[in-house]
């Protein structure tokens, strides 16, 4: 059933007519030709489709486009400011945190979410002290918090330090 929506993506508004069955991921890739988010599993299991919705990381494959409303969608592409890559983009390059790169835009958006959640003091499943005022992104915390992003090339060993370096620069890791 066709419905009129306007998607706000990476700073631009896009009026669109979509079938109600269209996911945000398919609207971005197939309709807006924004191929930054990737389709790995289409079932919430791999994280390749991760985008930020009003700054919070979500799996765009399980979000129906009609439900997005005026929320601002940010893809990994949109994290860059014009030609200036985001600190996470540079850190992934510097740490060689990918091989084929298919999972990388999802990893980057997820890491941006992890940093925001840590700044807000959110705990994780490996946080010993649930009452701690601040969250500290140790390697163990990064692994746990990034566990919704799979990498078939298994670049994990370099993804953790790539995220850790930005966490340190942002003061959520000592």
């Amino acid at each position: 059933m066709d419905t009129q929506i306007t998607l706000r993506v990476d700073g631009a508004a896009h009026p669109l007519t979509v079938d109600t069955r269209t996911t945000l991921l398919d609207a971005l890739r197939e309709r807006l030709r924004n191929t930054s988010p990737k389709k790995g599993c289409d079932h919430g299991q791999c994280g390749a489709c991760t985008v930020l919705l009003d700054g919070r990381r979500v799996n765009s494959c399980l979000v129906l486009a009609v439900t997005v409303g005026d929320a601002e969608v940010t893809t990994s592409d949109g994290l860059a400011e014009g030609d200036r890559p985001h600190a996470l983009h540079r850190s992934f390059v510097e740490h060689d945190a990918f091989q084929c790169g298919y999972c990388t835009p999802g990893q980057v958006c997820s890491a941006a979410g992890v940093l925001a959640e840590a700044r807000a003091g959110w705990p994780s499943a490996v946080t010993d002290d649930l009452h701690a005022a601040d969250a500290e992104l140790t390697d163990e915390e990064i692994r746990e918090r990034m566990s919704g992003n799979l990498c078939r090339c298994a670049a994990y060993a370099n993804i953790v330090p790539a995220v850790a370096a930005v966490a340190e620069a942002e003061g959520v890791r000592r």
Partner: protein
Amino acid sequence: MREFRYERAADVAGAVALLADAPQGAFLGGGTNLVDLMKLGVATPDVLVDVRELTSREVTELPDGGLRIGAGVPNADLAADRRVRERFPVLAQALLAGASGQLRNRATTGGNLLQRTRCGYFTDVTRPCNKRSPGSGCGALEGVHRNHAILGQTLAGSDHPATCVATHPSDMAVAMVALDAVVRVHGPDGERAVPITDLHRLPGDDPSRDTTLRHGELITAIDLPALGMPSRYRKVRDRASFAFALVSIAAALRVEDGVVHDVRLALGGVAHAPWRATAAEHVLRGLPATEDSFARAAESELEAATPLRDNGFKVPLARNLIVRTLVDLAESSR
């Protein structure tokens, strides 16, 4: 995916009215389970009534020191809430042990309670499954069932024919069952409050129904009565993170003068519903808070277990999880 009409309502009464007129419609929370099942052809609603932003996103105080959780509160926000972390650590830990950061941001409290089983036959429309397609048989009974139920199933020789051996997948619900939560529901016939221990059903002779809710009943909030004792959640799974439970436990324990004064125990991954371990609780009250007592209690609960061909390992796993978690809680309340 079947075509559907997408609706938003102005208020709770409007949402309830929309579904009352749509026998095949469904409420949509975060969609992390429902959209998945629609893609698989397992769920085929013709109308979706979006309630994610309609139901409350607030956690508010109850007069007794408990909390009221709006059905629209995202799982991530609930786990991070300072009051939940302080008063109900078992619930924060259960939420954090579930799914991934992305999913917890989108998933709602109401939707989490009503998520459906991860049984591989249920999610594959080419296979027999009494839950998805009543009367087609249970593929798991003689098939792949390593992560299926050990308690409360209907097996041949019981009062009912063997129908379904699936488990309820939610971590959050196990904690809420241990906490004696009350689910507030709004339906075509008005409002009612359902003790969470009455929400999820055992399969009996109708595994198609996971819960006692009627069509069109909207969960608006979940009330947690004050707890006042140490609590914790533990989950055993096949990998360290981002996997459903093999067995999990939500426990709370109050020890006074070395004796168990009060205890709450619920198990996940063992039954069609989150399993309140009432037999173990009954045995424990008044016993010395020792490892021996905890083992006796665990064994009395698991006496009723009827494991399948390939999931017998869950019986000692559940036993050890009960004992170890209670030992830890007893130490922390010393």
